[in-house]
């Protein structure tokens, strides 16, 4: 080969070598620079170069090349590009081609460096773009979740502001105060407009949380969503060495349609799975599954982590800005988002520590079967529920049961309703509402949707079940921030007659109440044990068991206290009288027995004033009041959850008991 040709080939990056057998090659032309960079120590040697010993890739390529060289009908033999590492550490791309020239076995090596670098740069740019895309998508998702939470939480206090200011405007206040009030109302309206604007600007999906109207695709396959999320998160789980799988107990063939919007359902799964991943050590397993619960379908994520923190209640775990110890820089919105979204769809969410190891996070959603496509007559949309305005001046007194977990809304709304002449019993959660409903008669039951323990939906279903097919049904009103036509349809299915959108105005509430059917029994309920006890349970922080223990203690101690007071009067011991009456005053105050409290106060004053002449008379009055209180407390003890459950179970039997049931 001429020198010029040799140099030209080397310049173009080609290395031409002849195969000498035994994995050794002899250069037949000047070698290019890149070749010396990789195999430098053999560069100046006149001996054959043992290339296959130095390059595992070439070693395997040689097998193909030998086939090619020895084949009677050779069909070409070329390798893909591979990377050799130069002694300097530089990575050099190399391609090989076997040639058979005049019976000589030639290996041509080429380094397509420029194209390779270009390709690498291209791939890197693409990869960076993908990472940016993923990061931005997560950022957007995070912001959407934050927005969703903000909107959810802003609507609540706005309701309170509206009602509070409406209430205030009915008070007699000075002209100046009225001006301030107008200012406040104006600011409230502005805030409402702003929330709506934010929603309009940022997300159609979010807007649906306040506005009635847009109807989207709201049924999704629970299992399908679980699988999609599992697939997309599989690399993340693999990277941490955690095994992720759909539980083997799941019927993969069945349809798992629920009332939910797909992208948000996937986000819920994704949040629960990421949460599970955070707490599951490498080598352990996270399982995702679904179960059939009749009207509801349940999904769960089981992990093999340390279980739930003992110092946190499940409702705290799903609270806003709640972060675990290994929060990993998260904002504490994920599980909160899961809760408000699931509750919005009429479902519930929770978590438990598993008996073996780890924890289970679950949520259940109403099944979306053919029943979702209800006929317009039985499932009107939001506009069908607008009821003609009646003369607000005529208020028919109604017996109203009102349940909301927000104390401010409870207080204000109850105040307004009472002011309008209605009789109101309040409950702070679904369970209390149901207990109250079973212990007295009502014309209207107004239920907030998102209550802990038992949602408004669940209470409504239970109430309708309790009523059986009776003609005389209580007027059920849902109060909710979610008033899309699909939400309204779902609420109607749960048994509601009307929907009060949040944030609401007094006039909205009055309008709905004016549509409630006239009470057949217009007499107001007498003192309702349910009413008192709903407040009592609230007073002790919602702990019904504690209240039951207190009642037990009170019933056990009070006869002795009364006997002690009688004895102190008989022995003319004013100090003992004052002390015993004072202690008893504490108990009766807790139970809200005002008359009894007054009598104990009087006895205490008589004792302290050492004036015992009227004491026996007051004691007799006190005994009467205590007897009433004891009877009420006994009645309540019979309605405690454990018992009422068994009573309820009895009611469900198709028996003659049904006819005796109290409404």
């Amino acid at each position, binding site marked *: 080969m001429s020198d010029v040709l040799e140099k030209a080939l080397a310049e173009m990056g080609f290395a031409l070598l002849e195969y000498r057998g035994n994995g050794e090659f002899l250069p037949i032309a000047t070698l290019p620079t890149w070749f010396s960079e990789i195999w430098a120590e053999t560069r100046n040697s006149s001996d054959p170069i043992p290339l296959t010993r130095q390059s595992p890739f070439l070693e395997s390529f040689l097998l193909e090349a030998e086939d090619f060289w020895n084949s009677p009908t050779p069909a070409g033999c070329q390798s893909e590009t591979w990377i050799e590492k130069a002694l300097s550490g530089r990575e050099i791309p190399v391609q090989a081609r076997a040639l058979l020239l005049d019976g000589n076995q030639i290996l041509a090596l080429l380094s397509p460096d420029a194209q390779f670098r270009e390709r690498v740069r291209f791939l890197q740019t693409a990869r960076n773009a993908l990472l940016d895309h993923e990061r931005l998508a997560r950022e957007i998702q995070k912001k959407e979740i934050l927005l969703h939470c903000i909107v959810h939480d802003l609507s609540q206090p706005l309701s309170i502001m509206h009602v509070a200011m409406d209430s205030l405007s009915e008070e007699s206040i000075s002209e*100046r105060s009225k*001006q*301030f009030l107008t*200012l406040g109302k104006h*600011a409230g309206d502005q805030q409402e407009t702003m929330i709506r604007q934010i929603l309009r600007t940022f997300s159609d999906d979010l807007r649906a949380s306040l506005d009635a109207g847009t109807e989207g695709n709201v049924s999704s396959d629970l299992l399908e969503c679980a699988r999609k999320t599992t697939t997309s998160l599989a690399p993340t789980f693999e990277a941490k060495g955690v095994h992720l799988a759909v539980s083997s107990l799941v019927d993969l063939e069945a349809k798992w349609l629920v009332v939910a919007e797909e992208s948000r359902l996937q986000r819920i799964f994704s949040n629960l799975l990421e949460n599970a991943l955070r707490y599951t050590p490498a080598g352990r397993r996270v399982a995702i599954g679904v179960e059939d619960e009749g009207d509801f379908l349940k999904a769960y994520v089981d992990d093999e982590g340390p279980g739930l923190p003992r*110092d946190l209640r499940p409702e705290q775990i799903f609270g806003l800005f709640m972060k675990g110890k290994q929060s990993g820089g998260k904002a504490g919105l994920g599980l909160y988002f899961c809760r408000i979204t699931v509750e919005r769809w009429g479902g519930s969410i929770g978590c438990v520590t598993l008996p073996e190891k780890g924890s289970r996070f679950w949520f259940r959603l109403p099944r979306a079967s053919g029943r979702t496509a209800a006929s317009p007559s039985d499932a009107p949309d939001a506009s069908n529920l607008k009821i003609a305005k009646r003369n607000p001046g005529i208020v028919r007194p109604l017996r109203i049961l009102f349940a909301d977990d927000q*104390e401010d809304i409870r207080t204000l709304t109850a105040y307004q309703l009472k002011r309008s002449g209605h009789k109101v019993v309040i409950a702070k959660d679904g369970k209390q509402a149901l207990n109250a409903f079973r212990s007295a008669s009502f014309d209207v039951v107004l239920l907030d949707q998102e209550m802990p323990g038992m949602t408004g939906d669940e209470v409504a279903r239970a109430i309708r079940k309790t009523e059986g097919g009776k003609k005389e049904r209580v007027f059920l009103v849902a109060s909710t921030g979610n008033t899309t036509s699909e939400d309204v349809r779902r609420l109607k299915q749960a048994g509601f007659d009307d929907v009060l959108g949040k944030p609401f105005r007094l006039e909205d509430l009055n309008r709905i109440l004016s549509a409630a059917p006239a009470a057949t029994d217009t007499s107001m309920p007498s003192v309702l044990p349910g009413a008192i006890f709903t407040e009592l349970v*609230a*007073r*002790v*922080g*919602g*702990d019904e068991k*504690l209240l039951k*223990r*207190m009642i037990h*203690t*009170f019933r056990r*101690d009070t006869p002795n206290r009364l006997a002690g007071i009688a004895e102190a009067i008989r022995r003319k011991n004013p100090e003992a009288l*004052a*002390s015993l009456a*004072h*202690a*008893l*005053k*504490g*108990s009766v*105050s*807790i139970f809200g027995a005002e008359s009894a409290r007054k009598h104990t106060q009087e006895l205490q004053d008589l004792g302290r004033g050492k004036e015992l002449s009227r004491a026996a008379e007051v004691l007799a009055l006190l005994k009467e009041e205590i007897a009433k209180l004891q009877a009420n407390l006994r009645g309540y003890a019979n309605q405690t959850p454990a018992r009422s459950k068994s009573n309820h179970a009895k009611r469900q039997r198709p028996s003659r008991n049904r006819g005796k049931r109290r409404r």
Partner: protein
Amino acid sequence: MPHILVAEDDATTREMIRGILTKQGYDVSTAADGMSALRTLKKKNFDLVLLDIWMPKMSGLGLIGTLHGEKHIPKIIVMTSDKTSDTVLNSLRGQVYQFLAKPVDANTLISTVDNALSEDPAVPPIEVLSANKHWVELLVPCERSVVSRVQSFLSSLETDLPADVMEKVGYAFRELLNNAIEWGGHLDPNLKVRISYIRTRKLLMYRLDDPGPGFKLEDLKHAAVSNPVDDPMAHMTVREQKGLRPGGLGLMLTQQLVDELVYNEARNEVVLIKYL
């Protein structure tokens, strides 16, 4: 886990308080009378005592007196349904942390206990300069929690005033104390606000003396109190321009709730008067 002792002779109340606080994760012990409370306190160090006043064997106030001079005295919250001035004044003298009216409810109980236990131990105590039925004078650290504590005492003093009037005076006092602590004392617990409560036959008077340099009315354009008579909303525009949250009604409301509101020249002392 903080240790709490509940000293209360009524078993139902005891049961309730123990139940609520145990559920909150506190370690709760109980005593049914003053003597057994004292014995329990001698055996173990408690962080907080919820103390009833009227108890057999030894009253709550008796117990406070006995504890005087002890090495470790827990914070004490007095719970009582009897708001007699003597009880309030003796509690103040006994360095009681706060007053809690009975019957208590879970929310108030939990927040009061949480606040008491979470308060920075470095916050100096309230100093009682005078605890006379007609003249109560206190030196309080400029710390926000102090406001509700002081009010729990002062609102419990007998005044023979109707509840709604007391509520208004209470609101006005609270507003002024908040201002004194926040603006005058810049929430520095080492600075003190001097509070005087003076009760005569004809009037009820509060005087607050804050450690700040005072302020000028013309600097208060953002507050409703400085609005011209014909433009009651003027301050809103100022607030909007300054980027302040809507509000600025505190002083204005305070003025309307009491009979007299008088500042000294520097405006770091204020007197509030309600005629009886």
